[in-house]
């Protein structure tokens, strides 16, 4: 999302910078008595005098503008997962990298006896852990939760994040 925003921001900034300079240059050039440089404004002017608001051409243009605007607004409303989870600190702004925390929790849970593999996903309020086991007879959930909590405790985040555990049976 952040990368998409960066790309979009660069594109919009380029359009603003390039478009603004081009329009200013066209105005200056026209003031000197010359015709269009790049923008065919004479054609646009002639069409704008004829085209009506309720005709297909302008409607299509306005539809594209409105949809593009709404799509970008909708994209901005999506809250991305945090890049880092905040730590209590005295003066600095401090946090633990979310991705690194997910990997650390998965490593610790995966190292538990009976666990074949594990995945962790951290959002703003909790850690979701999915552990895979081949054992059917034992309830591994408490042990998995304990391992995940131990990881959070080392990171100083055990009070900030809740832990949700799901243990799946490996049927392969």
């Amino acid at each position, binding site marked *: 999302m*952040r990368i998409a*925003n*960066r790309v*979009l921001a*660069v594109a*919009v*900034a380029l*359009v603003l*910078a390039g*478009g*603004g*300079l081009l*329009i*200013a240059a066209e105005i200056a050039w026209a*003031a000197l008595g010359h015709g269009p440089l790049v923008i065919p404004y004479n054609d646009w*002017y002639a069409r*704008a*005098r004829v*085209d*009506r*608001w309720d*005709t297909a051409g*302008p*409607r299509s243009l*306005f*539809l*594209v*503008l*409105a949809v*593009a*605007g709404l*799509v*970008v*607004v909708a994209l*901005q409303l999506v809250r*991305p997962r*945090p*890049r*880092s989870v*905040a*730590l*209590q*600190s*005295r*003066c*600095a*702004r*401090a*946090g*633990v*990298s979310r991705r*690194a925390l997910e990997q*650390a929790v998965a*490593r*610790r849970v995966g190292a538990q006896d009976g666990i074949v593999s594990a995945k962790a996903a951290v959002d*703003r309020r909790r850690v979701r852990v999915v552990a895979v086991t081949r054992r059917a007879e034992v309830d591994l959930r408490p042990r998995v939760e304990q391992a995940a909590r131990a*990881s959070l405790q*080392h*990171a*100083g985040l055990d009070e900030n994040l809740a832990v949700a555990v799901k243990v799946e049976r490996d049927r392969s």
Partner: protein
Amino acid sequence: MTGQAITGATNRADRRNRAGLVLTALILTAVGGYGLARGWGAFGDTAASDPLLAESWRTFVGRNQTPFWAGAALASLLLAWIGLRWLRAQLAESTPRRIDLTHHGDGGATVIMPAGAAQALAADVERYGGVASASARLTGDQDAPEVDLRVDVADSCNVPALLARIEDDALERFRRALDLEALDANVEFRLTTTPSRRRVR
């Protein structure tokens, strides 16, 4: 400092991009929405069947040619300036800004290279137990410098204790070395399996 719910989730450049994009998108939506509404007769059938460039507009521009086009040129240049500033902000995020930390005294000037000072801070933090590696970068400006510190630590490291040591020790020493009254710091820890490269002081 009580951490916000999340730190570093969106840094300044991300927030600016988001704000800029929302503003641009709202303008597009408003223009597009107005055009569609007018075309569909929301402002009456006469307004819908008007040409895009109304006679009254052409008369107005014809009567005020010089101020109108001068204003349009200025507005275009303003847009171009905003676009260029926005582009520059993207580049500034990826390249460290030069911060002048020169101290002028009676007998001359002391020049401190920001990159060197940040490197020294990182090396200082790397000496702490549990730290695998560290990197630092000075950002902000002369009046309000900030330091971004990234610390890779072992999974088993006690992060809160390490943070307290960094705040009380490394950052404080760094602030004093640069002769700064205040220093904003952003510290990000990354948990890793890489063994600590602890060095003895």
